């Protein structure tokens, strides 16, 4: 089995490209990227050696696959190509067991693909050290979970501030940034509420604020409405719509067709195989 992610540098084509990338970072003002802090250090995508690389791609999967070793081996994600551009709103639908979680883990950098390449913000994640993958995850990806994962003894603001701990954000900036993030999801009135005093929808919006506070390149939501009643779910989806309208790149993984329908682009996973929803493509409006 070919596992490029495990190969030492310099080995693969992507690895060879890395020094060139860093050399190109500074002297190329011609390439205008979105005012995203995650893009500050972005390499020039033009130097990209991978086929199908887009100028403003956030996620680029090239034949990325994930196989769980057997016996028998489970091909949770068959070789998949996927490009998500900056500002896109993508829904990944599919029944349970279709490989949604595997795709989420690969994109969210909590799992390594066993084959192919995954580039986040133009950085090939394959040859990265584990510490760098962790850093990328913390700085460039905001994760939202079905189970919220809020700390029960901390207020909404404190829960959001937890995300700033590992980035060592200066302490005097933490509270104002956290409050800004909570305001952005419409929770200005619940700043000091404990999770136990909040509705499910409010909790999920606190979690979204926590994912946003470090201004990631990508907001990755895993069944964000899975634990919510329809009214709360609608509020959360409205919040996500608004965020996307404000320029946030969104990937929502869901089995709920109603949630998938709100995305501008939808793909469906079935048995680890990805298929693009053609009807959606026409309405998709990548910025």
């Amino acid at each position, binding site marked *: 089995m070919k596992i490029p992610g495990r190969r030492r540098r310099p080995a693969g084509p992507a690895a060879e490209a890395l020094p060139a990338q860093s050399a190109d970072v500074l002297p190329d003002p011609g390439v205008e990227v979105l005012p995203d802090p995650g893009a500050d250090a972005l390499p020039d995508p033009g130097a990209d050696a991978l086929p199908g690389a887009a100028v403003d791609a956030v996620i680029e999967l090239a034949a990325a696959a994930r196989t769980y070793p057997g016996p028998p081996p489970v091909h949770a994600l068959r070789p998949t190509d996927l490009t998500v551009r900056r500002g896109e709103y993508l829904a990944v639908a599919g029944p349970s067991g279709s490989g949604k979680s595997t795709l989420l883990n690969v994109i969210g950098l*909590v799992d390594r693909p066993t084959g192919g390449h995954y580039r986040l913000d133009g950085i090939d994640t394959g040859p990265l050290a584990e*510490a*760098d993958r*962790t*850093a990328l995850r*913390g700085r460039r990806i905001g994760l939202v*979970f079905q189970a919220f994962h809020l700390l029960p003894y901390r207020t909404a603001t404190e829960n959001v501030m*937890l995300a700033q701990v590992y980035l060592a954000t200066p302490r005097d900036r933490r509270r104002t940034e956290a409050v800004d993030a909570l305001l952005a999801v419409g929770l200005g009135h619940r700043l000091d509420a404990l999770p136990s005093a909040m509705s499910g929808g409010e909790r999920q919006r606190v979690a979204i604020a926590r994912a946003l506070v470090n201004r990631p390149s990508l907001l990755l939501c895993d069944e964000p409405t899975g634990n919510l009643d329809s009214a709360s779910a609608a509020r959360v989806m409205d919040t996500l719509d608004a965020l996307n309208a404000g320029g946030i790149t969104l990937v929502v993984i869901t089995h709920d067709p109603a949630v998938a329908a709100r995305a501008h682009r939808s793909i469906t996973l079935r048995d680890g195989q990805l298929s693009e929803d053609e009807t959606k493509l026409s309405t998709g409006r990548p910025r």
Partner: protein
Amino acid sequence: MRRPVRRPRHPDVPGTRMTARDLVAESVAGILQRPARTALTVLGTLLGVGAFVAILGLTATARGQISSDFTVLAATQVTVKDVGAPDQGGQAAAAARYEFPDDADQRVERLNGAVHAGTYWQVFKTPPDVSTRSGPAIGTASGDTQGAEGLTVYAASPGLLRAVGPTLGGGALYNTFHDSRRMHVAVIGSAVARHLGIGSLAARPALFINGTPYTVVGILQDVERLPNLLLSVMIPERTARADYGDPAPDYAAAMLIQTRVGAAQLIARQAPLALRPDRPDHLQAVPPPSPHALQDSVTGSLDSLFLLLAGITLVIGTVGIANTTLVSVLERTGEIGLRRSLGARPRHIAAQFLTESAALGTLGGLLGTAVSIVVTLSVALAHHWTAILDPWTTLPAPLIGTLTGLLAGAYPALRAARIEPAEALRR
């Protein structure tokens, strides 16, 4: 489990880190989230460290107390008091009496464990006139040096002079011969000799007690027991009884027995019966305050036993912290996954749990030390002892708690660091 291959760091992605302040803040928050559980966890370390410090403090205090009043001399001395007939009330008590048999010294010295024994009492109620001249003391050119008032005269059996552990400054002690013949001889203390101006015994100097002459046969340079004998004149017991009668009730006779080490209790039980088989209750034996030598060695072995118990308590405390931290790790798997997703590296997770358990241990150590100091002080105060706390064992005691916590937290922290975020977040 996938083991990461060591790779060079990517230059464009600043690594995530955790400041010391954040580490402490997160750990303290973790501890304060469950105050009841924290208190119970701390209790184990508290008891362990507390027992440790308290045992060291209490034994040091008690030992200081014992050694202050423990001497071999005191442990080998028995006093037998002449208490008279206990049931005859005022009349008998008012009469002069001498309940010891004539061969009292020999009877006790025959007992196995006794070394020397002798009776003594103060002869005169009022200080007698003691001088080196036969007549009433008259002031001379040499002043008062040849006569003295206020000296005590003791009747002392020959055995007593041996039992006090004498050092002779000159001459010899009187013996049974002098005693049985009721001879007028005297042994004087060194202070008396200086006072009376008696330097050499070569000329057989005499001294007069209320006008009665006594030949000075010996001078006591020093004694181990009854130091007031150095300020006194001793005359043979039978001489005293012949001249002045039985001792007055206020100055009842007593017997001093020197015993071998460890035999004092035995001799104290046997002496009254050996002296007066018919009326043992007329005599009261006073053994040394307590068998200190024995007590000391017993305390020593108790020490190590208690320290062992303290160590066991500490081990239990360690296991308690380990258990709590492990439960906490399993309980907070979701939180760990979340923190990993927010950029925490395994070492950050491990450091957080290690800091939590170390803080728990330190808290227990501090509280345990404080409690044990209070206990030691209270016990010392209640016994009117001087509390002795060695700073070298007391001050570092909280660190024992810290070490306990670190030790206990090592495995749970490792477990926490190894939790895969993907699995943790699935919950």
